[in-house]
């Protein structure tokens, strides 16, 4: 299975490192430029959420990138998991944000750019699992 695992310290611009790594993996599986850009933007938002809002004492984020699909030579897409060990939050996607509300748009952006998003959050941390079809 093609997979990359990273431990990202919560320091400025580390979200760009995560984003570039996801972009390289997208290129590797032949994803289109526009889809790679969407994956990269979603990864930036997932990292920013963890960096800014997790309240994690352990100032690092775990990221796992992998391809999915039954045919490894011709994968269906890219799967990205980002996990922090923070205090968690209510990931209810039905909560309404006002269009011009300034904060809290990260998850909305992730949902809007990725094909599948699952979020699990409790007092021990938050895991964001995102999938993008090739």
């Amino acid at each position, binding site marked *: 299975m093609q997979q990359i695992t990273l431990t990202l310290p919560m320091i400025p611009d580390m979200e760009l490192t995560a984003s570039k790594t996801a972009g390289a993996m997208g290129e590797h599986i032949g994803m289109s430029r526009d889809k790679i*850009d969407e994956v990269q*933007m979603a990864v930036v938002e997932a990292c*920013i959420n963890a960096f800014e809002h997790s309240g994690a004492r352990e100032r690092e984020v775990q990221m796992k990138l992998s391809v999915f699909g039954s045919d490894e030579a011709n994968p269906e897409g890219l799967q990205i998991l980002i996990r922090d060990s923070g205090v968690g939050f209510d990931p209810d996607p039905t909560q309404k944000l006002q269009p011009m509300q300034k904060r809290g748009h990260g998850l909305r952006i992730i949902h809007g750019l990725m094909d599948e998003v699952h979020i699990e959050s409790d007092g021990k941390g938050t895991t964001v699992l995102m999938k993008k079809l090739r």
Partner: protein
Amino acid sequence: MTESLKLTVDEKDDGLAIIHTDGYINNQGGEEIARVAYDLIDKGHKRLLLNLAKTKIVNSIGISILIEIIEKMLEIEGKLAFCSLTPTIEKTFHIMGLAQYAGIHADEEAALAELS
């Protein structure tokens, strides 16, 4: 070390100014755009165009600062528009609702036609 955003400003005679961005629009980048935009407003510019041709990535904190600039422009009955966005940045602006309050155009020519 943070990846800094570079800005260049083209001030026109008729109250219009174009801000060209080059790089990542995060919180620092957004604040720098806001500082430049508010300086231009103080100098009497009521129509601003943000050309993002050399920006490939933005984040939600940077966008939230762009929203503050839009609000300021609405307050002074000015106009703000964006042009030359990547498809993903344009999609993100729509997700965040910016498109309801600021014009989004394919290029400078189209944006200037609306702002003129």
